[in-house]
């Protein structure tokens, strides 16, 4: 890497089911202003902007152009990146590359979605091939449900294991995160009693869809050091968009894209023993079932070891490797922002600014994004510019 890049500011809205107080640009504006405030910068300090969401959630074309009233993009370089559920993490990575290229010193990355403006499942279902898949692929739920069916029969995981993930994330959101959308503590019994929406997935296993925005400011090393004493350094990025037909993702008991993206990011960052080296993880877990199955792709446990690790409690706030102190995606999901919130939350941890979510002494954190057709993005963020 020629130019080291650090995160110097993070802002997000108070995520809600339905934010009617804000027109879309205003929602974006709130996150942007909070990010600027957190870094003690003004819009004049921003050299370029990257923004992302998914067009058909709000039915707005050329969002990079439409958003300038809220993004601050007036008479600035701005571009749009969109890759489905990974949009937020892709926006974060694009923000990183903007700065790492040396072309821009201080870069504002924005993810947002006002999911209450449309029927989220229907809008997502238009991501499937119109000729051979769309008719019978019901949004993101169906494929994920099918995947857990296969994992349960192969590794003996249970629906209760998934419920434990749901309880962990919801309770973290309730106790620690004032920005989270769902802030209600729940129990395993409540998850198990909630109605099936797509077997084996129950209502409380699924992420909500939210209205919200997140903004993260990236800066090249010398700028970053001038802006804050504790930047959150980007040590590694990886992304892998593995498939195009959703049917071909079936039978993948796990998530090979996450394994490959993690491999790239870990290599760049020098991560060799992820479970020990990471102090916190902010994972894009769109359904509790994925919280059981995907940890192994990140090297956090052995193959089929997801149920063991979840049952051990080690991923809870007081465990060895807390996962999703923010409450994660199960508590908050403005889709185009969701991946960027993971990066932002990871940065707050190493900057020591995570407040009630703070995991004491967090130095190295992994953030992930998930979306598209079983695609993954991975980001490794650290308190120091290189691993000790």
């Amino acid at each position, binding site marked *: 890497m020629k*130019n080291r890049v650090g995160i110097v500011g993070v802002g997000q809205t108070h995520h809600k089911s339905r934010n009617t107080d804000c027109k879309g640009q205003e929602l974006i504006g709130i996150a942007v202003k909070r990010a600027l405030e957190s870094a003690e910068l003004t819009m004049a300090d921003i050299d370029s902007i990257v923004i992302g969401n998914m067009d058909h959630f709000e039915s707005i074309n050329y969002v990079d*152009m439409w958003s300038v009233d809220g993004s601050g993009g007036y008479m600035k370089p701005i571009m*749009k990146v*969109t*890759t489905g559920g990974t949009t937020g993490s892709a926006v974060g990575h*694009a923000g990183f590359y903007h700065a790492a290229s040396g072309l821009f010193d201080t870069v504002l990355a924005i993810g947002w979605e006002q999911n209450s403006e449309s029927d989220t499942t229907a809008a*997502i279902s238009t991501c499937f091939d*119109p000729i051979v898949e769309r008719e019978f692929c019901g949004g993101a739920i169906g494929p994920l449900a099918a995947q857990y069916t296969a994992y349960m029969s192969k590794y003996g995981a249970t629906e209760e294991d998934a419920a434990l993930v749901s309880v962990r994330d919801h309770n973290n959101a309730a106790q620690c995160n004032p920005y989270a959308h769902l802030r209600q503590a729940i129990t395993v019994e409540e998850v198990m009693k909630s109605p099936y929406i797509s077997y084996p997935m129950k209502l409380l296993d699924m992420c909500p869809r939210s209205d919200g925005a997140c903004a993260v400011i990236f800066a090249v090393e010398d700028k970053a050091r001038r802006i804050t004493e504790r930047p959150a350094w980007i040590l590694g990025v990886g992304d892998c968009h593995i498939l195009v037909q959703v049917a071909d993702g079936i039978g993948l008991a796990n998530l090979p894209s996450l394994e490959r993206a993690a491999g790239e990011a870990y290599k760049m960052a020098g991560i060799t023993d992820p479970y020990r080296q990471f102090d916190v993880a902010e994972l894009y877990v769109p359904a509790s079932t994925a919280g059981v199955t995907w940890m192994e792709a990140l090297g956090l446990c052995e193959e089929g070891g997801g149920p063991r690790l979840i049952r051990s409690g080690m991923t809870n706030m007081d465990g060895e490797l807390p996962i999703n102190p923010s409450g994660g995606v199960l508590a908050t999901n403005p889709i185009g922002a969701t991946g960027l919130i993971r990066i932002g939350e990871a940065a707050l941890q190493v900057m020591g600014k995570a407040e009630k979510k703070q995991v004491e002494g967090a130095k190295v954190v992994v953030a992930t994004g998930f*979306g*598209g057709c079983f695609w993954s993005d991975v980001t490794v963020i650290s308190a120091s510019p290189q691993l000790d």
Partner: protein
Amino acid sequence: MDKVAIIGVAQTKYQRYNPASHAEMAYEVTCKALEDAELTIDDIDNTITVCNDFWDGRTISCMTITEATGSHKVPTTNVEGDGTYGALMGIMRLLSGLHDITLVVAQSKVSEGIPAVITNAMFDPVYERILGLDAINSSALQMRSYMHKYGITEGQCANVSVKNHKNAKANPYAHMPLDITADDVLKSRLLADPIKLLDASPVSDGACAIIMAGEAVARKRCSNPVWIRGVGHCADAYHLGDRDLADVDALISAAGRAYGMAGIQDPVKEIDVAEVYDAFSYMELMWMEGLGFCGRGEGGDMIDSGTTQMDGALPVNPSGGVLSAHPVQVAGLARIAETVLQLRGEAGARQVKGAKVALAHGIEGACGQGHCVFILGR
């Protein structure tokens, strides 16, 4: 900035209906660009796709061409915007030092959807969208504003169309090579006054790919690299009423940034050929002003003078421009590909002799709200 070169380019022929699917078109240009660069897919270590969910009629539209571009094998991202923005993202990947060779692929099937419905979605859904605004009538508001403010005539705009459709006759990729006169343009069907049918670009399907590399790799792997000397992008205000539609502030800023990087002080003297995003005839005149090829309000004089003709001092759109083929998203990347051919001396019958420095330009949003400018050199 460090040096980045374009080492391979490919385009499909642009046409009203390309029977190939999105993926099949993307695969065609991917293979041809690899062939042009004398590389294999294994040499590509990252990709940028350029897809738009509205034009492609699909959420996460980049899924459509992921495998066709080899993007499932390497780090990839999708830029939703004009192809020039995709190329810019590719440059940033290379300049980071984390990647060596980038493939950028843009594809578009404008003929699948209804352009007016798709461009209507550019306008704010709480406010102006309900007026039935689209790319054509919003541009008509801009054309009128420009003509009124600077005394530009419909005839001068028509002459852009005449020039570019004629140039297209020398471009085998062009969709609309035409022998027409200004009178033909002026008498063509009125779409939205003052825009007439022949002032407007056609509905085109097609794809374009470019392959870029950092300096060390480019020098080793390529005998005829074309260097990216400068790049700049910028956006103006969103609501049409927030802008003076006759002016081109964002383009001036984008060009200024690109010229600064490339060390260009007198664009007309230093640039040998330009490919600009003329979605409508009048746009070429406005963009020449924004690019500093002439003063503000002098776009009409510029076309009158013949400077931008094939035999002029600064030929603009030898390819026939966007007026002669308009695959949305692709069109800006095609401008880059065309300038690469010019700088390599491989532009065939549309070659501008001795071209050493070229400019390629893309736009984004309604009425050129956003611009991206590339300076390339031999």
